[in-house]
């Protein structure tokens, strides 16, 4: 029998943890915690990124993210957003590990505010230190296959190249390099940053990425919940298309109806 492959079995693993959803969503820029939680639900995401920031000691009873998105049900992936040196990022993640009690983290070390492009020298240095300290860093990086390989050698548990600058929504600018990274990596590859709409997420998955991470594309949509659903479908569609194996491109038409028997 030609039974279809069970789609449920299509999971991916990072640092020994297995997930079904290939969509990771951020928790920034939402109008409210309620909207944020509803968008996470609609996206089907099992992992959310979170930032580490000072508590507001002037008003300690403010509502908290953890009241709306339960860290027992959704994996919190602490990030180092806003860190421009290896030292700042390492310090932030040491605190994150104490706050959350887990070692799976997202490392990003930025080079400049204008583009938020990663500083790869600092990123690599931070990766080496974090791995020595027992962290399992998923690492935001440039879409450079050599840099990706160096991160993997340093112990990154996932490679997360940008599709375009953070928050730009420009879509995947260099499919060739993303594909090269996918082909060269023995750890999961997730496009992180640059996705603007559902087709961008589908492209990432069609290139063979293990997942996609996004925040602004959902949070700044006119209807974030609807966009969260769209992204969920797009990631699934792109993944299925990748598994299915797309047809070859050809330069001219090829009729789909038989030529034989024409009247």
């Amino acid at each position: 029998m030609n039974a279809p492959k069970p789609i449920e079995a299509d999971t991916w693993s990072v640092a020994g943890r297995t997930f079904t959803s290939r969509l990771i969503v951020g928790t920034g820029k939402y109008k409210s915690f309620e909207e944020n939680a509803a968008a996470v639900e609609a996206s089907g995401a099992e992992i959310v990124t979170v930032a580490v920031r000072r508590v507001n000691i002037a008003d300690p009873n403010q509502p908290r993210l953890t009241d709306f998105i339960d860290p027992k049900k959704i994996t919190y992936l602490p990030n180092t957003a806003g860190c421009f040196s290896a030292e700042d990022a390492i310090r932030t993640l040491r605190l994150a590990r104490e706050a959350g009690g887990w070692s799976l983290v997202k490392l990003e070390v930025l080079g400049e505010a204008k583009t938020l492009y990663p500083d790869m020298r600092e990123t690599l240095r931070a990766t080496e230190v974090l791995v020595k300290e027992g962290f399992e860093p998923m690492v935001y990086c440039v879409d450079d296959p050599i840099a990706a390989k160096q991160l993997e050698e340093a112990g990154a548990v996932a490679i997360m190249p940008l599709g375009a600058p953070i928050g730009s929504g420009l879509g995947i600018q260099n499919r060739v390099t993303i594909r090269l990274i996918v082909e060269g990596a023995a750890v999961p590859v997730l496009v992180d940053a640059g996705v603007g709409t559902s087709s961008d997420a589908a492209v990432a998955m069609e290139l063979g990425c293990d997942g996609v991470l996004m925040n602004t594309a959902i949070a700044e949509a006119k209807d974030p919940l609807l966009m969260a659903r769209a992204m969920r479908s797009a990631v699934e569609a792109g993944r299925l298309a990748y598994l299915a194996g797309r047809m070859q491109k050809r330069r001219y038409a090829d009729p789909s109806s038989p030529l034989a028997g024409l009247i």
Partner: protein
Amino acid sequence: MSLDTSLSIRVNGEHRRVPGGLSIAEMVSQLGLDPLRVAVERNLEVIPRSTLGELCVEDGDDFEIVHFVGGG
């Protein structure tokens, strides 16, 4: 004559005075925070949650108290 035994510390960049002899967990609680839901750094060193109740606040300590917030 009474001696002022209060300590001068900084918490998240703000100057504070607290009574002497407080544990770090007690100091955090006095700020209205749950020590189980935050992470504490003292003088650039992360304090394991399990020891917050044992370690005392010292004069001149510089604390950072953080938690998770929304972010991408």
